[in-house]
Protein backbone atom coordinates (compact mmCIF):
# COMPACT_ATOMS: atom_id res chain seq x y z
CA UNK A 1 0.00 0.00 0.00
CA UNK A 2 1.15 3.42 -0.71
CA UNK A 3 0.93 5.36 2.51
CA UNK A 4 2.90 8.38 1.34
CA UNK A 5 0.41 11.00 0.21
CA UNK A 6 3.13 12.87 -1.69
CA UNK A 7 3.75 9.86 -3.88
CA UNK A 8 0.55 8.69 -5.55
CA UNK A 9 0.27 5.08 -6.66
CA UNK A 10 1.36 4.41 -10.19
CA UNK A 11 -1.34 3.83 -12.79
CA UNK A 12 -1.48 0.35 -14.33
CA UNK A 13 0.21 1.72 -17.44
CA UNK A 14 3.01 3.35 -15.48
CA UNK A 15 3.54 0.31 -13.32
CA UNK A 16 3.60 -1.95 -16.36
CA UNK A 17 6.04 0.29 -18.24
CA UNK A 18 8.37 0.41 -15.27
CA UNK A 19 8.75 -3.35 -15.19
CA UNK A 20 8.47 -4.52 -18.79
CA UNK A 21 11.99 -5.83 -18.95
CA UNK A 22 11.43 -9.52 -19.59
CA UNK A 23 13.22 -10.83 -22.65
CA UNK A 24 13.34 -14.22 -24.33
CA UNK A 25 16.00 -16.64 -23.08
CA UNK A 26 19.40 -16.41 -24.71
CA UNK A 27 19.12 -19.82 -26.35
CA UNK A 28 15.99 -18.66 -28.15
CA UNK A 29 17.87 -15.60 -29.37
CA UNK A 30 20.67 -17.66 -30.82
CA UNK A 31 18.24 -20.16 -32.39
CA UNK A 32 16.35 -17.42 -34.22
CA UNK A 33 19.46 -15.58 -35.33
CA UNK A 34 20.87 -18.86 -36.58
CA UNK A 35 17.65 -19.49 -38.47
CA UNK A 36 17.94 -16.07 -40.05
CA UNK A 37 21.49 -16.83 -41.11
CA UNK A 38 20.42 -20.15 -42.61
CA UNK A 39 17.56 -18.58 -44.54
CA UNK A 40 19.98 -16.04 -45.82
CA UNK A 41 22.56 -18.59 -46.96
CA UNK A 42 22.77 -19.14 -50.74
CA UNK A 43 20.28 -21.80 -51.76
CA UNK A 44 18.63 -21.77 -48.36
CA UNK A 45 15.36 -20.41 -49.57
CA UNK A 46 15.31 -22.64 -52.57
CA UNK A 47 15.80 -25.68 -50.38
CA UNK A 48 13.07 -24.50 -48.06
CA UNK A 49 10.67 -24.07 -50.94
CA UNK A 50 11.40 -27.42 -52.51
CA UNK A 51 12.55 -29.23 -49.40
CA UNK A 52 9.42 -31.22 -48.75
CA UNK A 53 9.02 -32.17 -52.40
CA UNK A 54 12.66 -33.15 -52.64
CA UNK A 55 12.37 -35.28 -49.53
CA UNK A 56 9.31 -37.02 -50.95
CA UNK A 57 11.02 -37.63 -54.27
CA UNK A 58 14.15 -38.93 -52.56
CA UNK A 59 12.09 -41.26 -50.39
CA UNK A 60 10.22 -42.57 -53.41
CA UNK A 61 13.47 -43.02 -55.33
CA UNK A 62 14.96 -45.02 -52.46
CA UNK A 63 11.80 -47.07 -52.23
CA UNK A 64 11.79 -47.83 -55.95
CA UNK A 65 15.49 -48.59 -55.91
CA UNK A 66 15.28 -51.02 -53.02
CA UNK A 67 12.12 -52.55 -54.41
CA UNK A 68 13.85 -52.95 -57.72
CA UNK A 69 16.84 -54.58 -56.10
CA UNK A 70 14.65 -56.95 -54.13
CA UNK A 71 12.72 -58.02 -57.19
CA UNK A 72 15.86 -58.37 -59.24
CA UNK A 73 17.51 -60.56 -56.62
CA UNK A 74 14.46 -62.84 -56.60
CA UNK A 75 14.52 -63.36 -60.34
CA UNK A 76 15.55 -66.74 -61.66
CA UNK A 77 19.00 -66.84 -63.17
CA UNK A 78 17.75 -67.95 -66.56
CA UNK A 79 14.95 -65.42 -66.84
CA UNK A 80 13.63 -65.22 -70.35
CA UNK A 81 13.59 -61.42 -70.22
CA UNK A 82 16.86 -59.53 -70.15
CA UNK A 83 17.49 -57.95 -66.71
CA UNK A 84 17.49 -54.42 -68.11
CA UNK A 85 14.17 -55.00 -69.81
CA UNK A 86 12.72 -56.47 -66.64
CA UNK A 87 13.91 -53.48 -64.69
CA UNK A 88 12.28 -51.12 -67.20
CA UNK A 89 9.03 -53.04 -67.07
CA UNK A 90 8.95 -53.00 -63.31
CA UNK A 91 9.82 -49.34 -63.17
CA UNK A 92 7.03 -48.54 -65.59
CA UNK A 93 4.59 -50.63 -63.59
CA UNK A 94 5.78 -49.00 -60.38
CA UNK A 95 5.38 -45.50 -61.82
CA UNK A 96 1.88 -46.39 -62.95
CA UNK A 97 0.99 -47.66 -59.49
CA UNK A 98 2.42 -44.54 -57.87
CA UNK A 99 0.57 -42.31 -60.30
CA UNK A 100 -2.73 -44.08 -59.57
CA UNK A 101 -2.17 -43.80 -55.84
CA UNK A 102 -1.30 -40.13 -56.08
CA UNK A 103 -4.37 -39.35 -58.14
CA UNK A 104 -6.55 -41.25 -55.70
CA UNK A 105 -5.33 -39.22 -52.74
CA UNK A 106 -8.05 -36.69 -51.85
CA UNK A 107 -5.59 -33.91 -51.03
CA UNK A 108 -2.66 -34.84 -53.23
CA UNK A 109 -2.74 -31.67 -55.33
CA UNK A 110 -3.42 -29.17 -52.57
CA UNK A 111 -0.30 -27.27 -51.54
CA UNK A 112 0.16 -26.82 -47.83
CA UNK A 113 -2.47 -29.40 -46.98
CA UNK A 114 -1.88 -32.33 -44.68
CA UNK A 115 -2.77 -35.60 -46.29
CA UNK A 116 -4.62 -38.16 -44.25
CA UNK A 117 -1.74 -40.54 -44.56
CA UNK A 118 0.86 -37.98 -43.58
CA UNK A 119 0.77 -39.06 -39.96
CA UNK A 120 1.74 -42.62 -40.83
CA UNK A 121 5.24 -43.21 -39.66
CA UNK A 122 7.28 -45.51 -41.86
CA UNK A 123 10.98 -45.89 -41.83
CA UNK A 124 12.64 -46.88 -45.09
CA UNK A 125 15.68 -47.95 -43.12
CA UNK A 126 13.70 -50.47 -41.13
CA UNK A 127 11.15 -51.69 -43.62
CA UNK A 128 11.66 -53.06 -47.02
CA UNK A 129 10.58 -51.02 -50.00
CA UNK A 130 7.81 -53.44 -50.83
CA UNK A 131 6.32 -53.05 -47.34
CA UNK A 132 6.66 -49.30 -47.54
CA UNK A 133 4.82 -49.06 -50.84
CA UNK A 134 2.17 -51.42 -49.59
CA UNK A 135 1.60 -49.32 -46.48
CA UNK A 136 1.34 -46.08 -48.45
CA UNK A 137 -0.96 -47.59 -51.02
CA UNK A 138 -3.20 -49.24 -48.45
CA UNK A 139 -3.42 -46.10 -46.29
CA UNK A 140 -4.26 -43.96 -49.32
CA UNK A 141 -7.01 -46.27 -50.48
CA UNK A 142 -8.35 -46.60 -46.95
CA UNK A 143 -8.49 -42.83 -46.59
CA UNK A 144 -10.26 -42.51 -49.94
CA UNK A 145 -12.70 -45.28 -49.04
CA UNK A 146 -13.48 -43.73 -45.67
CA UNK A 147 -14.20 -40.37 -47.20
CA UNK A 148 -16.55 -41.79 -49.85
CA UNK A 149 -20.29 -41.46 -49.12
CA UNK A 150 -21.79 -44.37 -47.19
CA UNK A 151 -18.53 -46.30 -47.20
CA UNK A 152 -17.72 -48.41 -44.18
CA UNK A 153 -14.14 -48.13 -42.99
CA UNK A 154 -12.10 -51.30 -43.25
CA UNK A 155 -11.42 -52.78 -39.82
CA UNK A 156 -7.72 -52.24 -40.02
CA UNK A 157 -5.34 -50.27 -37.89
CA UNK A 158 -4.54 -48.01 -40.83
CA UNK A 159 -8.18 -47.22 -41.39
CA UNK A 160 -8.54 -46.34 -37.72
CA UNK A 161 -5.57 -44.01 -37.97
CA UNK A 162 -6.97 -42.36 -41.09
CA UNK A 163 -10.30 -41.91 -39.32
CA UNK A 164 -8.55 -40.40 -36.30
CA UNK A 165 -6.76 -37.93 -38.58
CA UNK A 166 -10.01 -37.03 -40.28
CA UNK A 167 -11.70 -36.56 -36.88
CA UNK A 168 -8.89 -34.27 -35.77
CA UNK A 169 -9.25 -32.30 -39.01
CA UNK A 170 -13.00 -32.02 -38.45
CA UNK A 171 -12.43 -30.83 -34.90
CA UNK A 172 -10.07 -28.12 -36.04
CA UNK A 173 -12.37 -27.23 -38.91
CA UNK A 174 -15.30 -26.69 -36.60
CA UNK A 175 -13.21 -24.22 -34.64
CA UNK A 176 -12.18 -22.33 -37.73
CA UNK A 177 -15.29 -21.97 -39.79
CA UNK A 178 -18.75 -20.61 -39.13
CA UNK A 179 -21.16 -23.03 -37.55
CA UNK A 180 -23.78 -22.33 -40.20
CA UNK A 181 -21.42 -23.72 -42.81
CA UNK A 182 -20.95 -26.87 -40.82
CA UNK A 183 -24.65 -27.29 -40.23
CA UNK A 184 -25.72 -27.10 -43.86
CA UNK A 185 -22.78 -28.21 -45.95
CA UNK A 186 -19.89 -30.55 -45.79
CA UNK A 187 -17.53 -32.07 -48.26
CA UNK A 188 -19.04 -35.48 -47.61
CA UNK A 189 -22.32 -34.49 -49.22
CA UNK A 190 -20.56 -33.59 -52.45
CA UNK A 191 -18.30 -36.61 -52.33
CA UNK A 192 -15.09 -34.78 -51.57
CA UNK A 193 -14.56 -36.39 -48.21
CA UNK A 194 -13.61 -34.56 -45.09
CA UNK A 195 -12.41 -30.99 -45.51
CA UNK A 196 -8.60 -31.00 -45.34
CA UNK A 197 -6.88 -29.49 -42.36
CA UNK A 198 -5.95 -25.87 -42.95
CA UNK A 199 -2.21 -25.18 -42.97
CA UNK A 200 -0.63 -23.86 -39.82
CA UNK A 201 -1.08 -20.14 -39.47
CA UNK A 202 -4.15 -19.99 -41.69
CA UNK A 203 -7.24 -18.21 -40.49
CA UNK A 204 -10.63 -18.97 -41.91
CA UNK A 205 -12.55 -16.14 -43.53
CA UNK A 206 -15.94 -16.34 -41.92
CA UNK A 207 -19.30 -15.83 -43.52
CA UNK A 208 -18.19 -16.67 -47.04
CA UNK A 209 -21.08 -18.66 -48.38
CA UNK A 210 -21.69 -17.01 -51.73
CA UNK A 211 -19.94 -19.82 -53.54
CA UNK A 212 -22.29 -22.35 -52.00
CA UNK A 213 -25.34 -20.37 -52.96
CA UNK A 214 -24.23 -20.03 -56.54
CA UNK A 215 -22.82 -23.44 -57.24
CA UNK A 216 -24.23 -25.65 -54.56
CA UNK A 217 -20.71 -26.83 -53.82
CA UNK A 218 -18.98 -26.36 -50.48
CA UNK A 219 -16.02 -24.06 -50.30
CA UNK A 220 -13.75 -22.61 -47.66
CA UNK A 221 -11.84 -19.39 -47.87
CA UNK A 222 -8.86 -18.87 -45.67
CA UNK A 223 -6.05 -16.40 -45.28
CA UNK A 224 -2.38 -17.15 -44.92
CA UNK A 225 0.48 -14.67 -45.07
CA UNK A 226 -1.77 -11.87 -46.30
CA UNK A 227 -3.11 -13.92 -49.16
CA UNK A 228 -6.52 -15.42 -49.62
CA UNK A 229 -7.04 -18.99 -50.77
CA UNK A 230 -10.20 -20.78 -51.69
CA UNK A 231 -10.77 -24.49 -51.39
CA UNK A 232 -13.63 -25.75 -53.54
CA UNK A 233 -15.21 -29.16 -53.68
CA UNK A 234 -15.37 -29.87 -57.39
CA UNK A 235 -15.52 -33.16 -59.25
CA UNK A 236 -15.39 -35.04 -55.95
CA UNK A 237 -12.03 -33.52 -55.03
CA UNK A 238 -10.90 -30.52 -53.02
CA UNK A 239 -9.37 -28.02 -55.43
CA UNK A 240 -7.29 -25.04 -54.40
CA UNK A 241 -8.05 -21.91 -56.37
CA UNK A 242 -5.39 -19.56 -57.62
CA UNK A 243 -3.90 -17.31 -55.01
CA UNK A 244 -5.41 -13.88 -54.87
CA UNK A 245 -3.67 -10.86 -53.38
CA UNK A 246 -5.13 -9.27 -50.32
CA UNK A 247 -7.92 -6.92 -51.34
CA UNK A 248 -8.56 -5.28 -48.03
Amino acid at each position, binding site marked *: *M*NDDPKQP*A*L*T*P*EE*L*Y*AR*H*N*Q*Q*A*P*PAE*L*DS*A*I*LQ*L*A*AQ*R*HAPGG*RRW*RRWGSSAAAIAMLAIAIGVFQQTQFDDMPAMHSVAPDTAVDMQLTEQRETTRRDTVASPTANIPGMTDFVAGKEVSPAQESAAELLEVVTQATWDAAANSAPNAQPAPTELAAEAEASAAAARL*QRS*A*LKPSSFKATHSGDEAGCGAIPELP*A*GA*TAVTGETEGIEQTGQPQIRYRL*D*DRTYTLRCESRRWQLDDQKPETR
Partner: protein
Amino acid sequence: MSASTSNVTELASYRRAEATEPGSDGAAEIEDDTLVLRYRAGDQAAFTQLYERYKGPLYRYFLRQTGEAQAQDCFQETWAKLLDTLERYHARGTFQAYLFRIGHNVLMDHFRRDRRFTQPLPELEEPASGQVEAGEALDEKRRLARLYEQIGKLPLAQRSAWLLQQESELSLQEIADLTNATVEAVKSRLRYAKNKLQAGMARHER
Protein backbone atom coordinates in the same frame (compact mmCIF):
# COMPACT_ATOMS: atom_id res chain seq x y z
CA MET B 1 9.28 -5.61 -63.26
CA SER B 2 11.68 -8.48 -63.28
CA ALA B 3 13.11 -9.85 -60.07
CA SER B 4 16.59 -8.53 -60.79
CA THR B 5 15.31 -5.06 -61.66
CA SER B 6 13.28 -5.10 -58.47
CA ASN B 7 16.34 -6.01 -56.43
CA VAL B 8 18.39 -3.26 -58.02
CA THR B 9 15.64 -0.74 -57.26
CA GLU B 10 15.42 -1.88 -53.67
CA LEU B 11 19.17 -1.72 -53.20
CA ALA B 12 19.26 1.75 -54.68
CA SER B 13 16.48 2.90 -52.39
CA TYR B 14 18.20 1.59 -49.31
CA ARG B 15 21.45 3.25 -50.31
CA ARG B 16 19.53 6.50 -50.70
CA ALA B 17 18.02 5.96 -47.27
CA GLU B 18 21.49 5.36 -45.86
CA ALA B 19 22.85 8.48 -47.49
CA THR B 20 20.06 10.67 -46.12
CA GLU B 21 20.07 9.11 -42.70
CA PRO B 22 20.64 11.65 -39.97
CA GLY B 23 23.91 11.21 -38.16
CA SER B 24 26.03 9.07 -40.42
CA ASP B 25 28.25 8.14 -37.51
CA GLY B 26 26.06 5.08 -36.97
CA ALA B 27 24.70 6.30 -33.67
CA ALA B 28 21.35 7.28 -35.16
CA GLU B 29 18.66 4.64 -35.26
CA ILE B 30 18.31 3.09 -38.66
CA GLU B 31 14.78 2.73 -39.97
CA ASP B 32 13.23 -0.72 -39.91
CA ASP B 33 12.59 -0.84 -43.63
CA THR B 34 16.21 0.02 -44.32
CA LEU B 35 17.29 -2.85 -42.09
CA VAL B 36 14.96 -5.19 -43.95
CA LEU B 37 16.50 -4.16 -47.26
CA ARG B 38 19.98 -4.56 -45.86
CA TYR B 39 19.16 -8.03 -44.64
CA ARG B 40 17.81 -8.93 -48.04
CA ALA B 41 21.00 -7.59 -49.56
CA GLY B 42 23.09 -9.91 -47.41
CA ASP B 43 23.66 -8.03 -44.18
CA GLN B 44 23.01 -10.47 -41.36
CA ALA B 45 23.78 -7.79 -38.77
CA ALA B 46 20.79 -5.82 -40.02
CA PHE B 47 18.47 -8.62 -39.01
CA THR B 48 20.16 -8.84 -35.62
CA GLN B 49 19.40 -5.15 -35.13
CA LEU B 50 15.76 -5.65 -36.05
CA TYR B 51 15.55 -8.63 -33.76
CA GLU B 52 17.11 -6.80 -30.82
CA ARG B 53 14.71 -3.93 -31.38
CA TYR B 54 11.53 -5.97 -31.18
CA LYS B 55 12.32 -9.17 -29.32
CA GLY B 56 11.38 -7.78 -25.92
CA PRO B 57 8.02 -6.20 -26.80
CA LEU B 58 6.95 -9.19 -28.87
CA TYR B 59 8.02 -11.72 -26.27
CA ARG B 60 6.21 -9.87 -23.49
CA TYR B 61 3.10 -9.60 -25.65
CA PHE B 62 3.00 -13.41 -25.66
CA LEU B 63 4.23 -13.85 -22.10
CA ARG B 64 1.43 -11.76 -20.59
CA GLN B 65 -1.18 -13.85 -22.40
CA THR B 66 0.12 -17.40 -22.13
CA GLY B 67 2.49 -19.47 -20.08
CA GLU B 68 6.24 -19.15 -20.51
CA ALA B 69 6.68 -22.27 -22.64
CA GLN B 70 3.81 -21.29 -24.91
CA ALA B 71 5.13 -17.75 -25.17
CA GLN B 72 8.47 -19.11 -26.34
CA ASP B 73 6.74 -21.32 -28.92
CA CYS B 74 4.70 -18.42 -30.27
CA PHE B 75 7.75 -16.17 -30.28
CA GLN B 76 9.84 -18.62 -32.27
CA GLU B 77 7.01 -19.38 -34.67
CA THR B 78 6.45 -15.69 -35.32
CA TRP B 79 10.07 -15.03 -36.27
CA ALA B 80 10.18 -18.15 -38.42
CA LYS B 81 7.07 -16.99 -40.29
CA LEU B 82 8.54 -13.52 -40.63
CA LEU B 83 11.70 -14.94 -42.17
CA ASP B 84 9.57 -16.99 -44.55
CA THR B 85 7.77 -13.91 -45.79
CA LEU B 86 10.45 -11.24 -45.51
CA GLU B 87 11.32 -11.57 -49.20
CA ARG B 88 7.76 -10.60 -50.06
CA TYR B 89 7.52 -7.84 -47.47
CA HIS B 90 6.74 -4.44 -48.90
CA ALA B 91 6.61 -1.34 -46.81
CA ARG B 92 2.88 -0.75 -47.09
CA GLY B 93 2.71 -0.14 -43.37
CA THR B 94 5.36 -0.24 -40.69
CA PHE B 95 7.56 -3.24 -40.13
CA GLN B 96 6.47 -3.26 -36.51
CA ALA B 97 2.82 -3.57 -37.52
CA TYR B 98 3.74 -6.39 -39.89
CA LEU B 99 5.64 -8.26 -37.17
CA PHE B 100 2.91 -7.86 -34.57
CA ARG B 101 0.26 -8.87 -37.07
CA ILE B 102 2.07 -12.16 -37.63
CA GLY B 103 2.53 -12.54 -33.88
CA HIS B 104 -1.12 -11.83 -33.15
CA ASN B 105 -2.23 -14.39 -35.75
CA VAL B 106 0.17 -16.96 -34.32
CA LEU B 107 -1.27 -16.35 -30.86
CA MET B 108 -4.86 -16.66 -32.07
CA ASP B 109 -4.00 -19.92 -33.81
CA HIS B 110 -2.39 -21.08 -30.62
CA PHE B 111 -5.57 -20.35 -28.67
CA ARG B 112 -7.68 -22.14 -31.25
CA ARG B 113 -5.44 -25.20 -31.18
CA ASP B 114 -5.16 -25.36 -27.43
CA ARG B 115 -8.46 -24.51 -25.80
CA ARG B 116 -6.94 -24.99 -22.38
CA PHE B 117 -6.21 -21.36 -21.93
CA THR B 118 -3.21 -20.68 -19.73
CA GLN B 119 -3.42 -17.63 -17.56
CA PRO B 120 -0.17 -15.77 -17.07
CA LEU B 121 1.23 -16.41 -13.65
CA PRO B 122 1.79 -13.51 -11.30
CA GLU B 123 5.47 -12.92 -10.88
CA LEU B 124 5.77 -12.32 -7.19
CA GLU B 125 9.21 -13.07 -5.89
CA GLU B 126 9.42 -13.34 -2.16
CA PRO B 127 12.70 -12.15 -0.67
CA ALA B 128 15.14 -14.92 0.15
CA SER B 129 15.53 -15.86 3.78
CA GLY B 130 17.87 -13.53 5.59
CA GLN B 131 17.45 -10.91 2.91
CA VAL B 132 15.46 -7.92 3.99
CA GLU B 133 13.99 -6.10 1.05
CA ALA B 134 12.95 -2.52 1.34
CA GLY B 135 9.24 -2.30 2.08
CA GLU B 136 8.55 0.00 -0.83
CA ALA B 137 10.19 -2.30 -3.38
CA LEU B 138 8.33 -5.31 -2.05
CA ASP B 139 5.09 -3.40 -2.15
CA GLU B 140 5.67 -2.52 -5.79
CA LYS B 141 6.39 -6.12 -6.64
CA ARG B 142 3.13 -7.14 -5.07
CA ARG B 143 1.29 -4.47 -7.00
CA LEU B 144 2.95 -5.67 -10.18
CA ALA B 145 1.90 -9.25 -9.49
CA ARG B 146 -1.66 -8.06 -8.98
CA LEU B 147 -1.50 -6.09 -12.19
CA TYR B 148 -0.40 -9.18 -14.12
CA GLU B 149 -3.21 -11.11 -12.49
CA GLN B 150 -5.72 -8.46 -13.54
CA ILE B 151 -4.33 -8.42 -17.09
CA GLY B 152 -4.84 -12.18 -17.23
CA LYS B 153 -8.48 -11.73 -16.23
CA LEU B 154 -9.26 -9.30 -19.05
CA PRO B 155 -11.26 -10.61 -22.00
CA LEU B 156 -9.00 -11.61 -24.88
CA ALA B 157 -9.86 -8.68 -27.17
CA GLN B 158 -9.34 -6.10 -24.42
CA ARG B 159 -6.15 -7.73 -23.23
CA SER B 160 -4.67 -7.89 -26.73
CA ALA B 161 -5.49 -4.26 -27.44
CA TRP B 162 -4.12 -3.06 -24.11
CA LEU B 163 -0.90 -5.07 -24.40
CA LEU B 164 -0.36 -3.99 -27.99
CA GLN B 165 -0.63 -0.40 -26.89
CA GLN B 166 1.78 -0.91 -24.00
CA GLU B 167 4.36 -3.01 -25.81
CA SER B 168 4.39 -1.50 -29.27
CA GLU B 169 4.31 1.93 -30.75
CA LEU B 170 1.42 1.00 -33.01
CA SER B 171 -1.25 3.56 -33.76
CA LEU B 172 -4.90 2.87 -32.96
CA GLN B 173 -5.49 2.34 -36.66
CA GLU B 174 -2.70 -0.24 -36.83
CA ILE B 175 -4.01 -2.06 -33.75
CA ALA B 176 -7.46 -2.03 -35.32
CA ASP B 177 -6.08 -3.42 -38.57
CA LEU B 178 -4.19 -6.27 -37.02
CA THR B 179 -7.01 -7.27 -34.66
CA ASN B 180 -9.62 -7.00 -37.43
CA ALA B 181 -11.59 -4.37 -35.57
CA THR B 182 -12.59 -0.76 -36.10
CA VAL B 183 -10.72 2.09 -34.47
CA GLU B 184 -13.81 2.84 -32.39
CA ALA B 185 -13.92 -0.75 -31.16
CA VAL B 186 -10.24 -0.58 -30.20
CA LYS B 187 -10.79 2.67 -28.30
CA SER B 188 -13.67 1.07 -26.48
CA ARG B 189 -11.62 -2.03 -25.62
CA LEU B 190 -8.79 0.10 -24.31
CA ARG B 191 -11.16 2.14 -22.18
CA TYR B 192 -12.78 -0.98 -20.68
CA ALA B 193 -9.39 -2.58 -20.08
CA LYS B 194 -8.03 0.50 -18.32
CA ASN B 195 -11.10 0.79 -16.11
CA LYS B 196 -11.03 -2.88 -15.18
CA LEU B 197 -7.34 -2.81 -14.36
CA GLN B 198 -7.70 0.26 -12.20
CA ALA B 199 -10.72 -1.17 -10.43
CA GLY B 200 -8.99 -4.51 -9.90
CA MET B 201 -5.90 -2.85 -8.45
CA ALA B 202 -7.94 -0.58 -6.22
CA ARG B 203 -9.94 -3.53 -4.88
CA HIS B 204 -6.74 -5.16 -3.68
CA GLU B 205 -5.35 -2.01 -2.16
CA ARG B 206 -8.35 -1.18 -0.07
